[in-house]
C-alpha cells in the first residue's frame, strides 16, 4: 500500500520549476523511463533473470554493467517486449512490456548486432526503419545520417560497410524521429577513437539538450565512465549494485593509494599496522589501504621511518573498472 505524500484534502499546485507544492511540502516526482520489478526470465532450465529490480530515471545516462551472461541483454529484451517475462514486471514510460508498441515511437534501440539489410543502401535502411515506425515527426533519415557523419556513405550498400560504419548506421536508425529513451547495446563496437569520442559527445549532448534518457549496455567501462550518471551492475540475473556513479566510486573513508618501493614487503608491513584495517595490492603494483579515520599522516610517516621509499600517498578514487572488478571479484 502506498503512503500518500500529501495529506488528503491539501491543495497541490505546480510551481514554475515543474515541482509540485502543497503548503510547506515540496514534491519532485521523478519519472522513470524504465521500471523493472522482480523480473524473472527462464529459458528452459536456465534462469537468466532471477528477480531483477532497477529503474532508469528520465533524463539520465545509465550504464547497465555485468559480465557475459549476467542477464543484461535479456533484461533489455524483456522491457522492449521482445521476450516474455516468466515473472515480475517491466514497464517503459508506464506501459507494460507486453504493450511496448504503445510507446515504441518514444524509444530508439541499437542492438549489438546492427541487423542491417545488407543488399540495401544505408539511406534505404534508414528509410525503411523510419517508415516502419510510421514516419514519425522529428529526425528524418537524412538528419539522422548527418548526425552520425554518414552522408558520404549513404548511397553505398550497407553490407559493404565496415563494422564501425554499420554501428553508426545502427545508431542513426535509433535516433530517427524523436525518441525520449535510447537503448544502446555495445554502441562503440568497431568505432575508431575519433568515432568513439564523437558518439560520447553526441550522447552527452542528447541528454543535456534534449533531456533524452539513455540506457547503455557496454563493456567499454573506461570510455563510458565519462558520461554515466548512474550504473546498474547485474550478476546472475540480479542487481548486484546500483546507484549514482559518484557515490559508487567514492572510496571508503580513509582509503588511500600508496606507491612505494618494495611494495610486497610494504603491504605486509601495513597489514601489521594498528591503524590499517585492510590492505590490497593493485595490478599496477600500488597498494590500496583502508585506514582508521585521521590516521593518514601517521601511517605515511611510519612508512617512511620504516625505510620504505614512498612516491605517492593519496586518497584513492576508484574507477568504474575497479568498481566492477571489486564487486564481481567479491563473488568469486
Amino acid at each position: 500500500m502506498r503512503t500518500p505524500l500529501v495529506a488528503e484534502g491539501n491543495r497541490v499546485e505546480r510551481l514554475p520549476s515543474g515541482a509540485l507544492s502543497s503548503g510547506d511540502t515540496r514534491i519532485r516526482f521523478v519519472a522513470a523511463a524504465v521500471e523493472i520489478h522482480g523480473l524473472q526470465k527462464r529459458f528452459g532450465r536456465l534462469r537468466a533473470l532471477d528477480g531483477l529490480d532497477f529503474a532508469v530515471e528520465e533524463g539520465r545516462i545509465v550504464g547497465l554493467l555485468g559480465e557475459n551472461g549476467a542477464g543484461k541483454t535479456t533484461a533489455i529484451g524483456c522491457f522492449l517486449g521482445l521476450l516474455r517475462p516468466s515473472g515480475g514486471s517491466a514497464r517503459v514510460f508506464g506501459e507494460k512490456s507486453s504493450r511496448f508498441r504503445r510507446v515504441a515511437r518514444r524509444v530508439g534501440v541499437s542492438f549489438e548486432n546492427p541487423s542491417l539489410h545488407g543488399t540495401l543502401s544505408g539511406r534505404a535502411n534508414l528509410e525503411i526503419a523510419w517508415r516502419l515506425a510510421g514516419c514519425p515527426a522529428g529526425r528524418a533519415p537524412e538528419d539522422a545520417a548527418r548526425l552520425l557523419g554518414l552522408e558520404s556513405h549513404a548511397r553505398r550498400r550497407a553490407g559493404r560497410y565496415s563494422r564501425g560504419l554499420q554501428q553508426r548506421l545502427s545508431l542513426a536508425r535509433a535516433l530517427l524521429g524523436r525518441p525520449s529513451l535510447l537503448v544502446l547495446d555495445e554502441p562503440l563496437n568497431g568505432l575508431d577513437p575519433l568515432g568513439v569520442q564523437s558518439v560520447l559527445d553526441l550522447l552527452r549532448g542528447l541528454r543535456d539538450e534534449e533531456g533524452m534518457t539513455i540506457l547503455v549496455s557496454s563493456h567499454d567501462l573506461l570510455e563510458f565512465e565519462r558520461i554515466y550518471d548512474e550504473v546498474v551492475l547485474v550478476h546472475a540475473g540480479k542487481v548486484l549494485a546500483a546507484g549514482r556513479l559518484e557515490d559508487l566510486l567514492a572510496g571508503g573513508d580513509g582509503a588511500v593509494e600508496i606507491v612505494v618501493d618494495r611494495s610486497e614487503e610494504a603491504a605486509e608491513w601495513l597489514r601489521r599496522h594498528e591503524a590499517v584495517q585492510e590492505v590490497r595490492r593493485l595490478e599496477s603494483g600500488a597498494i590500496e589501504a583502508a585506514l582508521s579515520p585521521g590516521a593518514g599522516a601517521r601511517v605515511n610517516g611510519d612508512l617512511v621511518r620504516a625505510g620504505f621509499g614512498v612516491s605517492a600517498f593519496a586518497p584513492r578514487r576508484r574507477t568504474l573498472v575497479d568498481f566492477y572488478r571489486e564487486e564481481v571479484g567479491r563473488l568469486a
Partner: protein
Amino acid sequence: MRTLGSPFGRLVLLLPPLAAAGRVLVGSAVTRAGRAGEIARAAALGGEAAGVEASANAYPAFAEGLAVGVGIAAFLILVHGALSIAGEREAGTLRSALVRGVSRGGLVLGKAAFGALLVLAALPGVALASLLAAAIPYEYGPVTEQGYVIYPVSTIHLETLRGIGAAALALLATHAFGLFVSSIARAPGGAVAAALFLFLVFDAAKGLLGGASEWVFATFVPSITDRSYLGEVVGIARGFSDAGFETDTWTRSLLVPPVQALLLVLAAIVTTLRRDA
C-alpha cells in the same frame, strides 16, 4: 529482407520459367530422337517404322512445361515461406521491426501478403516461358484424332486457365504452410528442412490416402506424384477423354487450399504472438 529484386526473389521468378522451357525443349528433343531412332531401326530391317507419329501439337508440351515450372515454383515458394520468420529472427531484423512498433500479427500478415505477390509474379512467367518454348518445335492447334476435333483451342485455353487458377490457390497454401513451420522453428535451416520433409513425405504418401488426400492443399500442387489440375490439363491436351476432375474434386481444389492457407496464417500469427522474438 526479401524483395522481388533480391537474389531469392529473382530465383523464384527465373528458375521456374527456365525449368518449364527446359522441360518443353528437352522433351521435344528426346521425342524426336526417339522417333528418328525408330525410323532408322525400321529402315535397317527393311520395313517402315510402326507406331503413331508423335503429335505436332504444341499444347501437350506447353501443359507439361507449365506443370513442371509450377512444381518448381511450389518448392521455391515453400522454401521462401519457411525462411521468412525464422530467417528474420536469426538475422535480428525481426526484433528491429518489433521495436519500431510493428505488430507481430501485422508482420506475419505482411509475410503472407508477400507470398501471394510472389505467386502472382511467378505464374505468368512460367506460362509465358512454356508457351514460347512449345512454339519452337511444335504448332498450336486444336486437339484432334483421325481428323476430328476433340478439344477446340478455346477449351484448352479455358482448362489451362482453370489449372493455373487452382495451382495459384494451392501455392498460396504452400507458402502459408512454410510460414507456419517458420513461426515454430528454432532456426531457418531447420524450418526449411522440416517444411520440405513434410511436403515430400505427403507427396509420396498421398496415393495411400485415397480420397482423403483431397482434404489437404498439397494434393493440388503440381509435384512428383502429380494429382493437380495442371496434370489433368496435360491429359486434356493429349486428348484423353477421362482427363479432368470430378465435380467434387474440383470444388475441393478451389476451397481446401484457401481455407487451409487462412488457418495456417492464423496459426502462424498465434505462434508468433506467443514466442520470444
